[in-house]
């Protein structure tokens, strides 16, 4: 068997040093799309954690039986099956949020993070390690989603999770919500700010 895997780093590395969004720059599209409000961002994060963890486990279990030349198709089928389950669960128990997320739950299938982890990790590692890797990357993705969603909802709508947090006295004094924060460009700028802060704290990640 391959060299011993450090489970701890498999789980925790993607949180910061090897974060899928801000270091590998994967899955940016959905970060732009679902983070206008905090609630959908959180649901999206949880969905991706679940799909990523279980698809990693399933692919890892059958990794030795998948013919190499059709492996992408097999991976897609597994991910698609899980995504349909998540989508149905959301429609059953959180209909409003699932309507807000609209196609983006379905588009988890095409999220680069999933294909990346399945190809790079689950195809070569045992189920338990793959499970931890899936959880780690999913959480790394969800963290960024939640940070971006927090700032966009706070500055763009003055609310958090639908509750108004900017006091009325601010609005009476002339404060106005920033409409640009609701639009996708500011999600990109917010992600850029996170990357800026992250890179300046981790100098070893800075590109020359």
């Amino acid at each position, binding site marked *: 068997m391959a060299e011993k895997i450090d489970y701890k780093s498999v789980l925790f590395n993607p949180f910061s040093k090897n974060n899928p969004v801000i270091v590998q720059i994967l899955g940016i599209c959905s970060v732009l799309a679902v983070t206008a409000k905090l609630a959908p961002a959180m649901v999206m994060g949880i969905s991706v954690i679940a799909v990523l963890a279980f698809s990693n486990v399933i692919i890892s279990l059958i990794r030795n039986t998948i013919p190499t030349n059709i492996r992408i198709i097999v991976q897609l089928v597994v991910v698609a099956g899980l995504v349909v389950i998540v989508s149905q669960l959301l429609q059953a128990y959180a209909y409003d949020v699932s309507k807000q997320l609209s196609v983006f739950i379905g588009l988890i299938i095409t999220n680069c993070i999933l294909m990346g982890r399945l190809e790079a990790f689950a195809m070569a590692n045992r189920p338990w390690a793959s499970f931890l890797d899936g959880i780690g990357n999913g959480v790394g993705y969800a963290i960024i989603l939640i940070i971006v969603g927090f700032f966009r909802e706070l500055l763009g709508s003055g609310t958090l999770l639908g509750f108004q947090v900017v006091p009325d006295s601010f609005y009476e004094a002339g404060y*106005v919500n*920033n409409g640009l924060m609701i639009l996708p460009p500011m999600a990109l700028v917010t992600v850029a700010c996170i990357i800026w802060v992250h890179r300046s704290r981790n100098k070893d990640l800075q590109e020359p």
Partner: protein
Amino acid sequence: MKFLKNYLDRVRPNFEEGGKLHAFRSVFDGFDTFLFTPSTTAPKRGLQIHDAIDSKRTMIIVVLALMPCFFFGMYNTGYQHQLALGLDTFPFWDMMLYGFLSILPKVVVAYLVGLGIEFAFAQWRHEEIQEGFLVSGILIPMILPVETPLWMMAVAVAFSVIFVKEVFGGTGYNIFNVALVTRAVLFFSYPAQMSGDKVFVATGKALGYGTPVVDGYTCATPLGQIATHSGGALELTGAAGEPISAWDAFVGLIPGSFGETSVICILIGAAILLFCRIADWRIMLSVVVGGLFMGWIANTFETPTYPASYLSPVDQLLFGGFAFAAVFMATDPVTAARTTTGKYIYGFLIGVIAVIIRTYNNGYPEGAMLAVLLMNAFAPLIDYCVVQSNIRRRMRRTRINSKTA
């Protein structure tokens, strides 16, 4: 002057390495070189190509060229205010004072925020202060509606100086025009405060001076009226309901953003810029040609669906911020195309796109800002294509020559 020089020389040691005010070295250096020729110049020996003009003097000339528009903006702000009050007396100095007091806080805030960020970044990076914001700081209040709240402007200035200029490396490295990005940020962030019929005429007191206009007073800019126009003959009206002609737009006594209403003053500014060879006449000319061309097409196929197509090509140039954008925005040497052919293409497309946006998108009454920003993004591509085609042409020529030889 002598006294100032002596004073600067006396305090200089404090700011040098090891001095107690070393943390403010870049600030000192900025003021020192702003006021006087730098004390360290290139050595006398050796071959040097030298020009008397540096970036600081360039900036000052642009600011001077903006002054006619600025003073006219002050006058026009007061004039529109008098009209909105329903008065028919126009005391010159009262109006100038009202306009001055309306614009003063904006200029102060723009400079404080913008220069503050520039100084902080220069200090942090151990660089000299670049004076790029000298022009932006005066441009920003001039291209905004006079009623823009100060805190909004401060937010937008901070955003554009940091994200458009400093992250790309400071003055001279920005891909977009800083002043225009400030306006674009405001336009998309706070649409209610940046367009419509409540913001273009000063209605309140200016720093406690003047009489407030009754609540609920509205007056849209001519282009704003055109964009929301539906059915019937197109009649443009001013702050007191009086009709507006193209001549009024040329003189500039119409509601609009602070400094961009008067085409006469913009032409004076253009003359200064061209005489001092700061701006490139090719860009100005091609923007105007592009605007006339697209205005002519739009006017030929005029349709009630898009009321702005009723404007004649010349009207397209006179109303709104088109002339201001052509003279002061499109010609920004940092963000414009650099090659000669590229400048023609760049300018022409700005003119065309500006008229397309204002004519065929009723949601955006004015397209000059968006057109210049879009072409800023494409300027490097235009230059690349021009340079590549030049290289190809020369390659072909050498091949033909070598065959014949």
